[in-house]
């Protein structure tokens, strides 16, 4: 089990390097190799989950992480200015463990979904594996620099995957996506540099997230909580927290910095939508949880109301926008905006049930939204069209498809017994139990479950109920029910959504101790 995290992290990258030497005519090799690489990654993370100690409890953050790998990586001596010390520092705790599992799983679904890609298959799968490594890296990196490297490195393959294999307006969407998220990254970069200059390990500055969370500040440095320095009348810590909210909020995405998401989703090929919705959004949420809330708990308390309002705004605004959509994929994209709002509300509540709920909702949405994009992809693969008014009565023509659609639509609208409900319930429990903001936040957030019902049910009514009809007669021969490959993707997702909905402790047992510790850390800062 030694260095298992490194294997999980770098194995896809290794396979990608092997692929470089394979001639591109043999396009079938690439998908098989990718499948093997991600499968091994998944097997290793399952093994990791089995040997993960769920009961681990410690005095400080440094003790909370397991399977830690820490070596010095880059050491630059800059003479009188100082030195830059970057570590290769990996580890998992109860927050990153479920997300790591989710990543390997969703990435595997993505590979299966990419099975029929022949055009420039070599480039596609190499980029996909690079993406895989960097996503996983984000969840296990404990050095801020390493995290930032992975965070930025996701953009590059994503840019090309949308820009080359995407739909009609792909170049517009990919540039928009790239610039938007790059802008967010700049905010994070500023905070990262500030933190590096303020946090010390012994007597040298460090990028270690663990030290940052444990608050090992050099006295008198800019981000030291006791530092009296103000920038434009605000303390540097407040600005840093706001910067992180903006930076990760773009990735999340939170209203009003969400407009990249519908375009990117609509233009991206199905597998990339799957990864984008399932994992990239979670990286934003994870960053908020780990970095913004982990390092700046004192500011998080002061700004809980602000974050909650942004969350509620996302829930309602995203939901209302989803209601107005006529393109199935766009509707799903806006529903993601709405769902990620719940994550913000849960975080803002600063209660253990709210935090657990946010994390659970991340995992649950990481299963539901890929399935929803697969479902949108099914109809697009067959007809090249996704406009709702072009279809009707699909239930009688494609019953198996309708069955899976119903499961995930109802999971999306938070039906009890499916995982979506548990996440929303816990977040709302946190929101109502929180002392940070008024009851109205909770009530408004609860109204989100009615809005989500409205758009999902309306879609069912328009596309699946009624008399069978498709707009173009040329689509008619293609309107066949699900293929074996499509079922292979949807069945595991269905099983997980039901299992987590019925027995949420399957995941919560992993995160419980860490979340309790997290809340305890935050509670030290209450005035």
């Amino acid at each position, binding site marked *: 089990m030694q260095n298992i995290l490194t294997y999980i992290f770098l194995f896809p990258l290794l396979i990608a390097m092997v692929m470089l030497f394979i001639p591109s005519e043999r396009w079938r090799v690439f998908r098989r190799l990718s499948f093997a690489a991600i499968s091994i990654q998944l097997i290793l993370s399952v093994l990791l989950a089995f040997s993960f100690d769920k009961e681990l409890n410690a005095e400080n953050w440094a003790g909370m992480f397991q399977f830690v790998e820490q070596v010095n990586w880059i050491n630059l001596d800059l003479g009188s200015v100082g030195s830059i010390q970057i570590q290769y520092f990996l580890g998992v705790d109860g927050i990153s463990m479920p997300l790591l599992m989710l990543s390997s799983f969703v990435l595997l679904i993505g590979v299966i979904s990419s099975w029929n890609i022949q055009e420039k298959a070599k480039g596609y799968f190499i980029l996909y594996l690079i993406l895989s490594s960097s996503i996983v890296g984000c969840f296990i990196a404990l050095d801020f620099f390493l995290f930032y490297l992975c965070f930025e490195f996701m953009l590059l393959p994503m840019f090309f995957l949308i820009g080359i294999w995407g739909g009609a307006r792909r170049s517009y969407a990919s540039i928009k996506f790239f610039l938007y998220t790059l802008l967010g990254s700049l905010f994070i970069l500023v905070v990262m540099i500030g933190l590096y200059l303020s946090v010390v390990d012994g007597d040298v500055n460090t990028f270690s997230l663990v030290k940052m969370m444990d608050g090992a500040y050099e006295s008198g440095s800019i981000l030291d909580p006791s530092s009296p320095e103000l920038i434009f009348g605000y303390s540097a810590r407040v600005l840093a927290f706001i910067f992180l909210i903006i930076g990760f909020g773009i990735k999340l995405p939170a209203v009003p910095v969400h407009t990249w998401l519908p375009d990117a989703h609509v233009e991206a090929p199905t597998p990339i939508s799957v990864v984008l919705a399932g994992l990239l959004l979670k990286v934003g949420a994870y960053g908020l949880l780990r970095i913004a809330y982990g390092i700046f708990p004192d500011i998080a308390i002061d700004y809980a109301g602000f974050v909650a309002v942004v969350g509620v705004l996302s829930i309602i605004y995203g939901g209302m926008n989803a209601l107005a959509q006529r393109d199935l994929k766009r509707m799903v994209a806006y529903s993601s905006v709405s769902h990620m709002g719940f994550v913000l509300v849960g975080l803002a509540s600063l209660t253990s049930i709210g935090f657990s709920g946010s994390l659970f909702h991340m995992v649950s949405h990481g299963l539901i939204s890929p399935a929803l994009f697969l479902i949108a992809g099914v109809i697009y693969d067959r007809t090249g069209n996704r406009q709702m008014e072009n279809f009707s009565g699909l239930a009688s023509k494609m019953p198996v498809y309708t069955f899976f659609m119903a499961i995930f639509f109802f999971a999306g609208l938070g039906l009890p017994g499916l995982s979506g409900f548990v996440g929303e319930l816990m977040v709302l429990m946190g929101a109502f*139990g929180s002392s940070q903001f008024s009851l109205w936040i909770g009530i408004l957030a609860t109204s989100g479950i*009615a809005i989500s019902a409205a758009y999902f049910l309306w879609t069912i009514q328009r596309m699946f109920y009624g008399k069978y009809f498709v707009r173009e007669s040329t689509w008619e021969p293609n309107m066949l029910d699900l293929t074996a490959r499509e079922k292979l993707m949807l069945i595991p997702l269905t099983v997980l959504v039901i299992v987590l909905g019925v027995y949420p402790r399957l995941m919560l047992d992993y995160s419980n101790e860490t979340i309790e510790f997290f809340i305890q850390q935050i509670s030290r800062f209450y005035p």
Partner: protein
Amino acid sequence: MNKVLIISLLFLPLLGGVFGMLFKNTSYSIGGIGLSFAASMLLIINGSEFNTAIQWLPDYSLGIQLDSTAAILVCLVALISLLVHVFSLEYMREDNGKHRYFAKLGLFTFSMIGLLLANHLILLFVFWELVGLTSYLLIGFWYKKDGIPSSARQAFMVNRIADVALLAGILMLNSQGTIQISEMTATWLFVPSILVAIGAFGKSAQLPFSGWLTKAMVGPTPVSALIHAATMVAAGVYLLFRVAPFLHPDALIIIALIGAVTAFYGGICALFQHDIKKVLAYSTISQLGYMVLGIGVGGVSASIFHLFTHAFFKAGLFLGAGALIHFMHKVSFEDAQDMRNMGGLRKQLPWTFRTFLVCSLALAGLPFFSGFMSKEAIILSAWNWADQLGTWAYIIPDFALITAFLTALYVGRMVLLVFYGTTRVELKSSFVESNALKLPLIVLAVGSLWIAFNWNPLAHASWFNSFWMIERYSSDGSLIVTFLSILLVGVGLLLSYGLFKPDSAYATSYRDVTGRFASALNGFYVVWLYDRIGVGLSYAAKQLHSFDQKVIDGAIHLLGVSTVVFSKTIALVDRFAVDGPVNGAAHLSGFIGKRFAAINSKDTQTQLAWLLVGVILILSWILFF
């Protein structure tokens, strides 16, 4: 032993339904629900209580509890469900999707029993949503027909909106204390009380949520009997029954008022319907209003008693209507649910007629029928409650009495128009009531007689009262009220006979009656109001989306465009302002250089001339400065 019984009675209907769908055999479903009913009977006989819980979330243990009330109601649900299953065997025999249908019925029975057993408000909410889902699926069962998908969606949405209030209420209580039902003690604050009550109003189709129940009538008729009359709609009353001791006093008054107004509203609307299922739907709304009223006035056990009797006679009426509709489908091409096409059917459907009559009289509340006993109990509770509160409070028992009169009136109208007189349409073929149709009807009719509940036809309690006994205001009381309500029912029935008897003007011309009293016919436009809200919401969504496109995305584009413009400007500045002087300097020096070079290239004389000019310039410099 009890654990096995409870687990089996909960899961058998679901398993039966699933197996039935997988193996395309309805006997699995019948077997599952039959065994479940047997298990519930055994539990009643054992008479034991039961309580268990599992840890669901880190700090939340969700449990099920079987107390005597839950036991008797589980038994009721299992029985009605079994009868509906048997009835559906005949009713759905020729439908292609019948295995899907039985699976959904199984899922419903599972959820409904779970709802009754839940000992935690969150678990109750879980099953609450599941019964809502099955209701949606079964209303939309014939999804290919026009109008059905939107009715199903509207029913679900109205429930969902009420559920938002319920969930908010539950979560508010959760942050204030325990929400384990068996451990609740303190009286709640007003806001959570009213939020929970709104949730119950949604499920139990009280104003202003009543419209969904009339929309739900597009589903198969046995489903209407099971879900939209006997069991699911009573879930709201059951929830109120469970939480009644903790509700805020002001909330109770509001509950009583809403119940009274809804009872009256349902009675008025039922009087003007032409669709037999709509008559029954409005009647259900009205009767549920009685139950809600009963909870509000503290007649908790009277309400549950009425829930019990109502389940029998209303399920009997709906199944009877189902038999009528089934018959009409077979023998006529006209609209099978429209009473204007019926008439004189007591000859064709003798058993349906007899059972329908018994159930109707129970609904009307005539002595010697079950409905009389439970309705009297509610009215008496309301009377005693008003007695303690003051004169204004008599408005509630008054509403209840007027509704009793209205009930007798519309019941008389329905029975007379459907079964008496002559058939209004031509019948194409003959029809025999099969046993699968007859048996459930007879069982339910027997359950609507007084003897099923108490040997004394004028009593206000039943043998089962010990199962749910909690009471704030007794339903013992004045003979005047009993007398008054019997009188009102009698007058109502007589009046309806006078108005709608076979050779009356109304009955003879009924075939061609069109909508007078349009607002009562349309349920006072409650559904229209929902439609307007829906349209408004989707308009708002469109506006918000164009805001998203134009303003928010527009701002992003503006940012992008202005960045590009800025860059272009910078490029121009760079080219002309920065690079310009540099190039200018180069040009200038080149120009000057050329000029000077020109000096060299000329002949010697010119060079000498320039030399002279230079010398003169230098000399003048020296001389003059």
